[in-house]
């Protein structure tokens, strides 16, 4: 789960709160900076996702779950570097456009974490599935050798049973179809637990991110 409309502060708060000056919420983030200077024969893992990957609201990008996974990789002395390609507020459609920018740099493992914002906005399940498939297709075309990982997502109970189950099923379906490693539910043990989430109730705290990382690590370590 994640912040649905990160765009709102930009567009609208500026409108109503003259004083706010468009203060965007703090977020650590997005980018591929860790990729710089990997001259060693290290392999690269690209985490492509939204604010959960970016570590929205955390003090440091290393506290976000890809950072925690990197720490696990380092302590296991595996030759992998993680590139954090998270962007707060990203939807599957946004990811579909953005992926080209990140495909410029090669990687060996591609971890896909998108769809949460679609779910929170109640976007049609079919269109989310289509966008995710398009992203996977682009990756496969450019780097056919790359291993693929799918991070599953669910929407809050209050969205309604039908939508929730349709949404939840996107991920295993696509994973099977594209022969991807699946993490059934990224936020297992964190989603809905008050003290593991920030005040907004959807973004994990530092503590929560550790559990999220453990969920990912459980599946990821098998393909390293």
């Amino acid at each position, binding site marked *: 789960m994640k912040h649905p409309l990160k765009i709102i502060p930009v567009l609208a708060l500026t*409108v109503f709160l003259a004083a706010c000056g468009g203060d965007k919420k703090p977020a650590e983030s997005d980018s591929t900076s860790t990729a710089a200077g990997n001259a060693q024969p290290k392999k690269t893992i690209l985490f492509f996702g939204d604010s959960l990957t970016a570590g929205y609201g955390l003090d440091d990008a290393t506290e976000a779950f890809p950072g925690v996974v990197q720490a696990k990789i380092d302590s296991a002395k595996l030759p992998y570097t993680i590139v954090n390609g998270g962007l707060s507020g990203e939807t599957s459609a946004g990811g579909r456009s953005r992926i080209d920018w990140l495909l410029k740099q090669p990687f060996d493992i591609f971890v896909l974490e998108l769809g949460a914002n679609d779910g929170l906005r109640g976007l049609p399940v079919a269109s989310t599935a289509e966008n995710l498939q398009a992203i996977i297709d682009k990756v496969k075309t450019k780097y056919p050798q790359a291993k693929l990982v799918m991070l599953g997502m669910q929407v809050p109970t209050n969205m309604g049973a039908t939508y929730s189950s349709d949404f939840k099923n996107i991920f295993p379906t696509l994973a099977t179809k594209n022969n991807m490693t699946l993490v059934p539910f990224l936020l297992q043990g964190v989603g809905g637990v008050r003290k593991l989430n920030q005040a907004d109730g959807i973004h994990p705290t530092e503590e929560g991110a550790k559990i999220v990382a453990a969920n990912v690590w459980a599946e990821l370590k098998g393909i390293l």
Partner: protein
Amino acid sequence: MDNVNYNRKINFGWLFKMAVRDSRRNRARLLLFISSIVFGIAALVAIYSFKYNIQNDINGQAATLIGADLSITGNKEPGKKLQTLLDSIGGERSEERSFASMIYFTRTQGTRLVNIKALKGAFPYYGSLETTPLKAGTGFKSGKYALVDKTLMLQFTAKVGDSIKVGNATFVIAGILNKAPGQTGLSSGIAPIVYIPFQYLADTKLIGTGSRINFAYYYKFPQGYNIEKLVKKIDPALDKAEYGSDTVENRKENTGRSFGDLSRFLSLVAFIALLLGCVGVASAINIYIREKIASIAIMRCMGVKASEAFLIYLIQITGIGLIGSVAGAILGTSVQHLLPYVLKDFLPITISVSISWMAIWQGIGLGIIISVLFALLPLINIRNISPLNTLRMSFEETTTKRDPFRWLVYLLVVGFITGFSYLQLGDWLGAGVFTVGILVAFLILTAIAWLLIRFTRLLIMSSWSYILRQGFANLYRPNNQTIILTVSIGLSTAFICTLFLIQQLLISQVSLSSSGNQSNMILFDIQTSQEKPLAELTRKQGLPVLSQVPIITMRLDKVNGKTAADAKKDSTLHISPRAFAWEYRVTYRDSLTNSEQITSGKFIGKAAPGRDIPVSAEERFANRINVKVGDKLVFNVQGIMMNAYVSSIRKVNWNKIQTNFQVVFPAGVLEDAPQFHVLLTHVPSQPVSAAYQQAVVKQFPNISIIDLGLVLTVLDELLDKIGYVIKFMSGFSIVTGIIVLISSVRISKYQRIKESVLLRTMGASRRQIFSITALEYLFLGTLSASTGIVIAIGSSWLLAKYRFDMPYHVNLWPVAAMFFAITALTVIIGLLNSRGILNKPPLEVLRSNA
């Protein structure tokens, strides 16, 4: 007279009798004076009554912004401690749970994300859930019914009586929701609203582990309850529980400056009403007493003591003041009742007309106080009128010795004005400044009049024609009215003109935030490939593309070579370390928008390849990271470092509904970066909105739409109302100001009678007298109106800068028109005053006015 007992006791009965007897002498003249008081007080009472009524109206409407006196909200189940606190708060209470959910229209088989609100209690306490049919707004709580947002109904072609499925429960649509109080928060704009009764919330089975629910509690308190105090008391506990509170006052502050501007404007109007009252009453009293000098001298000859003469007239003035004020209060109240009725077809707002006793008592009280205060000055001189004055027939003012009482009266007048301003403004500094301002205006006008008297005397040449000489000579000769008329015309002009200018400024501010073609729908997450087809679709639907901007997310990496770590370590850099933690939403374009203004540097719209990128920084952002024009920045655009420098610093009007940015890039660098687009449009009605949303969702399912229509109508209505109220109040005050001005010029009627009659007796033609009078008033009118206008421009500038805190841009043409109008008005009234003399035989006039 040796047997007169100078130590006799004051016989009040006799004094009263004398006061009445004296007034009997010339009732027509007395009536004229009273009419001036009546107009002054009527202006004051009418303006006050409107003010009180309008203030109540606006406050009532403002309460619909939140729908209750107090709201307490949070996004998690209240704990035990909080629950106890919530229960302990008195007054009426309503409870609401709101959350996002997908609903299903069973008949048309559509699914849509909505904002479900489960409601218990009588909320909204202010305003109502406006529905079709009307009674559904309250009736839906009686069964398994729902209220559904109008646009949503149209979008899914649903009808009242259809069913919707919310989670596991099915509800019958009882009504279409047209407007709901308390929906001004943006959160409510994200998804359309559906109300359901609280008691069926559990049936939906949507509440459970992993649900995201917002909890809201609404309270209504009895009138006069101190809400601020309560909020102060409970806020720490709420903070601790991660809950927040909101009050009407709070919401008003956040809604923008309009409310503050309105109340400042109304207190200004009240203040000016008082001063208009003062001008009306004081100019009448002053001339009245001066005319009484002869009678007083006669009375003194007959053995009346100075103190007795003083008391006789004090009693008389108090009586006149009382009669005038009561009549004024009646007139003012009837104007207040009649005007909205007469204008009801022209006014787009309804102004409630309840009798404001507060205004009436204030009017009467102030009327008497002003009469007595301003009568005291000339009355004090009475004590110095010697019986010899009768014999000398001198019209020169009795030489005023340094009378300590005079200063006491001045002090009283100043104290009165200061005290009253304090009542209006609530702070002594402001009151002091206002009083000093008025004194300065008064002194300027007096000085101008004095200079006029001095200079015309020197200026007049014997070579001028007789009429010209007479006209000018009237300005300085004994029994001249230069000072009194200059001051009263000048002050009234200054007040009228100040009100007009301030009104102009305020209206331009209000219309900025609520005018017609403002965007009320935001579409976002538009992908680059969808940009053009969406714009096309929008136009095809007949809607304007108010703006379409690309947005790129990036982070700040370095400021003048310093990184986040440097900023954290060295606070002397004055770079906020948080500036590095933010994700910046940035756009690129080749020009400024109309809500931006460069304060330093130069906006560069195109980047030169291979060079540092010239970016424009918003003022406050620039302050936060402590940069000036020319400073270097490094941005991390999703993995790619871009070297930039600040080429300009912008001031942004954040008040408008449009996309505003802290950083703007030039065209030519970010075109290929990952980005999405935002489109703003204006939908004129809910059916259009529904059709448009349907078309967009069908073609571009990923695009999210925020329809601010419902949110903005509540706000727009309010701002519109405020705008009209400001126009109405200033219009009304200006008209009353003109009436007061007319009546204060009118009281100079008797000043010139004797001379005109003598002139006529000596054979002057009507035309000559007419010209002489016209010249005198023309001169007085021009001079005092222009002085008044100069004072008004100065005072409105000061008010705009220090009291309203807004830029001073005014259109001076209407002011020029006002100048001519007031001058013309003065001349016309002056001529009307002498009409009686011109049309009747001199003897008749002399006899009746001797």
